[in-house]
């Protein structure tokens, strides 16, 4: 009798597992510091998963990390509750994903912006240096003072990669252009400090810059505001941020994080999700620059043509954009 009951229970559990596995996935996403409304990187992921939700009606679990110790906890909690797949947003979750993924080998994880080499992890990385190169070209062409600025968030190789591609792009069109580069800080709070962003931007304007590219999450909001107040130009990052300050946003360097997040859930639902590294560059349309109603008056035909030419040469391999993370150095800066 007991045996029978056990078998019945086991088969019932197996059945339940099988049905939930086939069409009903339980996706989850763990946002990083900055929050899902940072108007930038996290918000891109949010838009992607929201799109998935509205198309399929499948609810997802979410968590916003507000201090570094929560990352691993949050991801493990999601795994314990049987979420699958789980998206970790941002390079900072690399260690946490690596640890939890080993503990739960049957659950699929996707990490955006970092590489975790495990059989159940998909790593989505972007060739930000290529996109930054393009906005660097635009910045140098729009600049009247021949000086362009860069403001990064936290001082890490990933952000140096943006700076380096940007500087190379600026120098590709104007060999003598000078590029100012500042980092907001060395701790994660550097992603969410608009006051400091605005002061850094003002200091770069004082030093002669008239276009500033901010790759700094929430800190960037202060940079765009300072540019608007000073009547100078700014360039957004990750999501299309042109609408934030119409008229003084030259463009935005977009990373298709929304597509990456959407695809993770979509492929998981269809059963085609694969582990490994996805590296998305210009050729894969993983990075781009944004042109819409808010900035079309700032972009001249000559600029469009030049960027198009640069893009084709990068895709064809004629220009090789230096990746800072390969050797931790930047020849253009």
């Amino acid at each position, binding site marked *: 009798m007991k045996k029978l009951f056990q078998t019945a229970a086991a088969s019932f559990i197996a059945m339940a597992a099988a049905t939930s596995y086939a069409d009903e996935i339980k996706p989850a996403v763990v946002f990083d510091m900055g929050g899902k409304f940072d108007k930038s990187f996290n918000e891109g992921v949010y838009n992607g998963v929201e799109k998935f939700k509205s198309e399929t009606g499948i609810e997802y679990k979410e968590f916003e990390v507000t201090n570094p110790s929560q990352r691993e906890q949050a991801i493990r909690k999601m795994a314990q509750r049987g979420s699958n797949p789980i998206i970790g947003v941002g390079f900072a979750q690399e260690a946490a994903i690596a640890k939890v993924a080993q503990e739960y080998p049957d659950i699929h994880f996707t990490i955006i912006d970092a590489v975790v080499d495990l059989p159940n992890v998909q790593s989505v990385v972007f060739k930000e240096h290529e996109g930054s190169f393009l906005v660097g070209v635009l910045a140098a062409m729009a600049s009247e003072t021949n000086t362009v600025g860069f403001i990064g968030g936290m001082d890490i190789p990933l952000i140096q990669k943006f700076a380096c591609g940007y500087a190379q792009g600026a120098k590709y069109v104007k060999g003598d252009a000078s590029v100012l580069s500042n980092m907001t800080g*060395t701790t994660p709070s550097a992603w969410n400090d608009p006051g400091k962003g605005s002061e850094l931007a003002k200091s770069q304007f004082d030093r002669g810059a008239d276009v500033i590219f901010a790759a700094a999450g929430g800190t960037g909001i202060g940079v765009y505001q300072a540019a608007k107040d000073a009547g100078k130009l700014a360039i957004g990052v990750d999501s299309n941020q042109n609408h934030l300050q119409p008229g003084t946003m030259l463009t935005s360097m977009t990373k298709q994080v929304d597509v990456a997040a959407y695809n993770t859930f979509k492929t998981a639902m269809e059963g085609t999700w694969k582990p490994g590294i996805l590296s998305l560059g210009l050729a894969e349309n993983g990075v781009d620059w944004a042109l819409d109603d808010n900035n079309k008056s700032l972009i001249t035909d000559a600029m469009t043509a030049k960027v198009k030419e640069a893009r084709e040469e990068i895709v064809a391999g004629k220009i090789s954009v230096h990746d800072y993370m390969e050797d931790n150095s930047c020849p253009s800066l």
Partner: protein
Amino acid sequence: MDDFFLLSLSTLDSTLRLSTPLILCAMAGIFSERSGIIDIGLEGKLLAGAFAAAAMAAYSGSAMLGLIAAIITSISMALLHGFACITHKGNQVVSGLAINILASGLTVTFGIAWFHQGGQTPNLSGDARFSPITFPGAEMIREIPFFGPIYTELLSGHNLLVYVAFLAVPLTWWVLYKTRFGLRLRAVGENPQAVDTAGISVTFLRYRAVICAGILCGIAGAYLSTAHNAAFGREMSAGQGYIALAAMIFGKWRPVPGLLACLLFGFLNALAFRLEGVSVPGIGQIPVQLMQSLPYVLTVILLAGFIGKAIAPKAIGRPYVKER
């Protein structure tokens, strides 16, 4: 040389902007602490004020209404602090910390509930912000060497609240040292029994002192979110209330030395922004980390040896009990 002159001007310019909230908070602290009430809650009042200003300005489109909302919010926080530690004789440090925690949580909660942007408020523009005031003739005398740039770059072109902050210092000095209210306020912080014996209500005096502190913190909060920045972001006060507290102790609970301490902190911050990534002749590039730690290192060194002993008001931290 000319470049250097302009660069130092822009650094001083930025010093004024960065020290404005510190000055207002430090003056607020002086009012409260001179009356015998420890004010750890400066940070919380600053943050709550910043949120109230941004929320009101976003809703009404008027920076002035935002300022009023900030002052009201900050005063109610101050009254809460007063209720706990004047009326109910609670521990002033605990009550102040509670104010800080309350502000940190409430602002984000209300922010999410009202604006659905993860605790931020919408971006403000136009009349919803305090815009720069250009002094008369600023453009005309720009060309005059030395004095022209100082007038146009440094003195003119700030927003109203920066000037209010600098006016708050002589005003605080005048109220504390030249009025009857100020004399009684200082007396109640040194020897409340004597004030009580003279037939003046200690409770009422201390309440008025914390209300003054609330007004000043509210202005500082409005400056953060509607003048210096253009929106409220979670935890945007970033410890400035504590720095103001340090500056106040640094200035030995006096308005003018307090002002100088705030300016010093502001200047070091501004310098850190300017020197980041710049090669200094003879030294080379200064590491960012060094620049960022400089204000704190300097505070420790100066407090340890150079400014002498900072003596707090005698009755600070002790609730007044009339009869045992």
